[in-house]
């Protein structure tokens, strides 16, 4: 009888372990494409000691370079950004981050205010799959789910990705247990250029007012920061797509004023930091390339340093050493991207060689 019980328990453990490995195998690795899928999970690997946490969509993970902030102002930062990150996802990512650390400043890019409802399952996945399982994650999932999504498939992603069995590649096996690092504290580097030939004009909208849901989570974010003695800095990053309406800008200015927050629309300051949309973007104005990101970050760093009074930590031995390693990785990737660009005329595998570079 005892033997039978032991066998039964062992069998169940074996099954669970097998399914867990299968689940890892079936989940997308985002190593050779859609690198954004790895951004949220990479945060857990980093030392949790950041002066600034950035939250928001691609306008933060493409336009802000933490290495530039460090090298020029001695500010440590991490970008908890993800593709089309919605306001409630930003809120819950912040809530989760605060369990690990207490930054001095949280920078939130307000473009996501335009979305009052969940948009697409694929984007939800890019943000939420990387989060560690916790009550916060479950709340984030509940707030983000489309009508046909199931909460349980975020707890057991095999239920979502099981059908990938027929499209598994070598990458899925190679990165089964460990993935390469692809970001620089949440910054996704691209050095290539695609000029923005046209500065867009926004189409008329029937209603410019941000939705109640967006405001609800922005209010929560404001409160969370206040409760934790963190300064919330609202920004509109200088991407020219999607179009940022004057009416939206006015609402953000009003909100910031009412809540005693700083809000800066950096589209109004592009001349000051010298953005050239023919040279500083890799996709015609949606996202900055490295040159654009460094220019913008340099400008942003001055504000963080002077107006928010963040201290220069470059003299802290342990911190400096850690960030030097990050900078080495940063420049090695930059060099590799330059090489690829020269060799192929496009970025063939940017980020995909990150680990190799780091190891070298």
């Amino acid at each position, binding site marked *: 009888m005892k033997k039978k019980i032991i066998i039964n328990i062992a*069998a169940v453990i074996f099954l669970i372990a097998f399914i867990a490995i*299968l689940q890892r195998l079936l989940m997308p690795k985002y190593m050779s494409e859609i690198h954004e899928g790895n951004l949220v999970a990479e945060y857990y690997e980093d030392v949790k000691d950041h002066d600034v946490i950035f939250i928001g969509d691609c306008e933060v993970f493409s336009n802000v370079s933490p290495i530039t902030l460090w090298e020029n102002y001695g500010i440590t930062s991490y970008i908890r950004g993800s593709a089309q990150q919605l306001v409630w996802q930003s809120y819950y990512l912040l809530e989760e981050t605060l369990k690990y650390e207490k930054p001095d400043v949280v920078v939130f890019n307000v473009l996501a205010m335009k979305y009052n409802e969940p948009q697409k399952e694929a984007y939800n996945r890019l943000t939420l799959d990387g989060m560690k399982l916790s009550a916060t994650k479950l709340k984030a999932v509940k707030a983000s789910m489309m009508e046909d999504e199931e909460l349980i498939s975020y707890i057991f992603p095999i*239920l979502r990705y099981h059908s990938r*069995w027929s499209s598994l590649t070598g990458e899925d096996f190679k990165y089964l247990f460990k993935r390469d690092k692809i970001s620089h504290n949440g910054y996704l580097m691209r050095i290539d250029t695609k000029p923005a030939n046209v500065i867009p004009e926004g189409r008329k909208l029937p209603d410019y007012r941000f939705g109640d849901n967006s405001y609800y989570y922005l209010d929560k974010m404001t409160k969370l920061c206040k409760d934790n003695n963190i300064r919330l800095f609202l920004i509109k990053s200088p991407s020219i797509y999607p179009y940022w309406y004057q009416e939206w800008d006015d609402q953000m200015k009003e909100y910031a004023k009412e809540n005693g927050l700083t809000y800066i629309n950096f589209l109004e300051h592009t001349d000051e930091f010298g953005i050239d949309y023919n040279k500083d973007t890799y996709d015609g104005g949606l996202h900055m390339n490295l040159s654009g990101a460094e220019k913008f970050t340099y400008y942003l760093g001055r504000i963080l340093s002077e107006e928010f009074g963040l201290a220069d930590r470059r003299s802290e031995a342990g911190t400096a050493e850690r960030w030097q390693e990050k900078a080495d990785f940063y420049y090695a990737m930059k060099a590799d991207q330059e090489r690829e660009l020269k060799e192929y005329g496009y970025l063939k595998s940017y980020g995909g060689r990150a680990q190799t570079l780091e190891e070298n």
Partner: protein
Amino acid sequence: MLFTSYSFFLFLAVLAILYYLIPAKFRWMLLLIASLSFYAFSGPGYLLFILATALTTFYTGLKLDALQRTSSEYIKQKKEELSIEERKAYKERMKKRQRLWLVLCMVINFGILAVLKYSDFTIININTLLDVFKVDGKLPLLGFVLPLGISFYTFQTMGYIIDVYRGKYPCERNFPRLLLFISFFPQLVQGPISRYDDLKETLYSGSGFVTRNISYGLQRMLWGYFKKLVIADRLFVAVSTIIRNPGEYQGVFVLCGMFLYAIELYADFTGGIDIALGVAQIFGIKLKENFQRPYFSKSITEYWRRWHITLGTWFRDYMFYPISVSKPMQNLSRKGRKTLGDTMGKRLPVYIATLVVWFTTGIWHGAAWNFIVWGLLNAVVILISQECIPLYNKFHSRFKVRDAFWYRLFQVVRTFWLMSFLRTFDCYMNVGLTFRMYGTILTKWNLPELFQGGKALFGLSPADYIVFAAGAALMLFVSLRSRAESFRDILARRPLIVRYAVYFALIIAILLFGAYGPGYDSSQFIYSRF
């Protein structure tokens, strides 16, 4: 709540734990609460319909019981005073009163079913006639939505009340108990159609915790999910591609559609029944088997004895026999013998009963002409087969092939394809289109197109076909092995490691290859729409 939904697993797990935690005498009450909750998930308003059926049937049962008691007590008391004729007359009077109650109950309940299920079908046909006769104006459609399982529970309940009327067993005098018999959740989606005397023993007894019940129940569910999610829902894509594009898929593709639909329907329906029986077994409740390896049948009559058995026996016991032996039929038979001869006269009631039963079977499956034509064609084929029996006998007396393997195989294949042909009406849902598609099999010789890549994959990938082929082979293997005894019994004799390997392989196969979640248009059980 779908059997394939995550919420159902949670519902079942919580229910099973509670069931075995509470005292045995309360267990059936818990099942009743669970069944009504399960039902309410499909729309709380629909509870009214099932409650109406339960209440009318319960009251009728009490009435019938009271009349039967009064009748027998009166005769017992007056045994000495009444003559045989008087007793007979009294009994007849009382039976008539019982019949009135029975008819009233049946009219109400079949009436609810008919109004909900057939109103729009009737209106569409009236509108068509108005069009034909160029009469202005059209009746608006009512658009009723069918309550979950109404076709199944109505038949089950009417079977019960007919049995009470016939004195087969006394009526259930406890309303909640009767309500549980009618609403027991595993059988609500697509049957089986239970009989009260079969079910009551295990339904109300509050079975104790028996490991074998849990283990066998889970195994049966697992096998059901495998059939439904890995095979049926995968084939759903292919079958839909073929039948939704009749302009593109003709000739040999129609035959492919018939074949794939036969497998899909089998995997879907038997899978659903496996889940229902497995769920019931977890609670120690034994539901009737609904299939006996039907695709191994050697004739259409045998096929219908082995496919959807509980519906077939319902029609046999409550419709075919009563019609065949009814007074009008006996009179007709007598007249027939005079005008058409002895043989034909004797067969007349059977012919008529067969046609009525199959017309009803057809329309039970759906309010559409394709189902009616499908039912009547089944009747025609069955009657022709019966008429051909002397010919078959002659053939078999001359050629001794009856026991030859190849001949039996031929019979099985012939029956499979015959049924697949008839079932095409269920696919195209349009009588004219179905006949046109039959026509293309003869007129469009496009066999080479079958080997020309993409089109012949019917929306599936080659990998999907590998999974389907492996799954179908496994179904065939299990069917062949379970001829004499249940496959679970065979498995139970194997070493523990083999058993675990089988269970784990099934779990992994369902998890991995199941056609569920985003990217799949996973379908509801086919029979649940009937």
